[in-house]
């Protein structure tokens, strides 16, 4: 007994030590986790990051193989709590340079938008077109505008580790005033960096409509971690879309005229856009 007890005590101490090492971060994470409403509010506030100029590469690859479509894009956005304005313009390839679209949403109003196609066609986007993919990709116009973190119903429904990062699963459901084709959106949120690492959007049929996976996280020009590369998939569809950000500039001065349908007609390079 005299010899056994120190061993037993040592074992208990070792278990406690390793237990502290293994579980302490999780305990701390649990303590630090805000409730669903707060978490959604923070994520929503992060989305409303004011005015920004972003460079993106958009690649759409057919699942069955074949040539992929690559576009270099310039994105101008102005996101506030009251309204969102977004312009996507194709910079490359040369033959598509200048193709563009504009999206606008304010308050509870339905989103509006316009599409400019070459050589000189400017068309408004109808409500049904909002569900179509941008530049033939798997990402819709509505996906770009929708801020499901601001929806009425938010709940934490579990935890899961994504790429060795512990995530809270936030479930967002639209309320009476929220408009969406999705009835439920689940986000796997890295609460430390406050970014979603995976988002699943479910249709009214209960089927998964879209899955957005963050494949690379980087710090932007404001020193904030952001999903720098994402992959968009639609179960059962024939292509996969990847968006890779290469540059961002926040606090850019835009005027209202920068976000008009007429502004789509000319490709204003970053030079003059960033006043």
């Amino acid at each position: 007994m005299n010899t056994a007890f120190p061993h037993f005590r040592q074992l208990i101490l070792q278990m406690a030590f390793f237990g502290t090492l293994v579980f302490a971060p999780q305990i701390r994470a649990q303590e630090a986790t805000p409730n669903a409403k707060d978490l959604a509010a923070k994520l929503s506030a992060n989305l409303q990051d004011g005015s920004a100029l972003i460079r993106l590469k958009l690649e759409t690859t057919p699942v069955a193989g074949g040539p992929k479509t690559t576009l270099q894009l310039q994105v101008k956005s102005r996101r506030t709590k009251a309204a969102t304005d977004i312009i996507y313009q194709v910079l490359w390839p040369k033959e598509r340079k200048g193709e563009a679209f504009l999206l606008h949403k304010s308050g509870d109003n339905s989103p509006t938008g316009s599409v400019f196609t070459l050589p000189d066609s400017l068309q408004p986007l109808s409500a049904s077109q909002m569900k179509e993919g941008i530049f033939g990709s798997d990402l819709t116009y509505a996906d770009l505008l929708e801020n499901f973190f601001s929806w009425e119903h938010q709940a934490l429904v579990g935890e899961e580790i994504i790429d060795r990062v512990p995530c809270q699963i936030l479930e967002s459901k639209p309320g009476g005033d929220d408009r969406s084709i999705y009835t439920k959106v689940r986000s796997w949120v890295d609460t430390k960096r406050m970014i979603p690492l995976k988002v699943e959007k479910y249709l009214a049929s209960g089927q998964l409509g879209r899955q957005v996976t963050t494949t690379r996280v980087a710090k932007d020009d404001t020193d904030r971690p952001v999903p720098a590369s994402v992959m968009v998939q639609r179960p059962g569809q024939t292509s996969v879309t990847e968006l890779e950000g290469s540059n961002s500039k926040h606090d850019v001065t835009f005027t209202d005229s920068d976000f008009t349908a007429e502004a789509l007609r000319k490709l204003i390079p970053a030079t003059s856009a960033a006043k």
Partner: protein
Amino acid sequence: MTLFTIVVRGLIRRPVRTGLTLVGISIGIAAVIALVGMAWGYEKSMVRHLDVMGIDVVVSNMSGGIMPKVYDASLEEKIGKLPRVKESTSVLMQMLSVEDAPMMMVSGREWAGFTWSQLKVVEGRMPKDGSENALVLGRLAAEVLKKKVGDTVQIDAMEIPVVGIVDGNAVVENGAIILSLSVMQEATGNQGKVNFIDLQLVPDTTKAQTDELCKQIKEIFPEGRAMVASEVVGTSQGFRIARAMSWSTSLLAIIVGVLGVMNTMLMTVFERTHEIGILLAVGWKRRRIVYMVLWESALLGFLGGVAGVTLGAIGLKILETTPAIRGLLEPDLGPQLIFISVGIAVVVGVVSGLYPAWRSSRLSPSLAMNG
């Protein structure tokens, strides 16, 4: 029959087992070569890049994203006037996704600055002046972008003609798109901004004088940092992580190698108890038995090391040509790494043979001969 002949025969007698053990060690050593070679290559490429350009001190604001933050270009004038500064030049460098190529270095350099003088024109010409809408491509960048002189490259919304292909004498330079600072500023909307000021110091500047200069720069540019070029790599967290990751992964491969060789040598000892018993009975000293087993395992390690270096070198050559790496770094497979890798393999062999050697030396001649 010499000890060496017995050792070689011991390995040849079981060719399949020896071969499989060699494969195990060589894969481990190949992993060391590939991972450490990449990490060292990464460091060497950057050091060579700075060295080739003749940069002694780099001034930047490293907080934030992948590349340093931009700051006002007028800072160069103040910094250039500091004592011990022979020449200064401003650079706006960004990692950009260009056309359908992966991210690549786009370097806008102050026209006529010393960083231009190291470039050798391989084809075409240099831009005529700092205002010409023109760029030159490093040799590898031209290959990656599939561009030749006369084509255009689109940087953001601007189409810029390629007027030359250059050899920068360093892989980072050869993988870059190089243009004048003013054109780069215009293309990326960063008029009047730079993110590096490169300094050349007067010859014979001492370390104390360089440190003093760095302090003075810090006073002028508090949010920035002046770093001696040779220390840029050593203090970079990215380099440190790459180094730690390559060695920790290599360590795992080495542990697997140790276990593999140890298993083989133990099997050898168990199978040869009769033979060892005879050797002890005819007068071999126990120490000689230990040497025999250790030599066998060391030879196994050495051969595995040589095979692993060959395998690793092939792996590095393949990695070097992958689109993600091409033009960004040049893997380092110098004599030092080869020597270290083969040395590790031999040490792995000897360490793995210690326990089997000890077991063999404990055998009793009579019991061993009885089987």
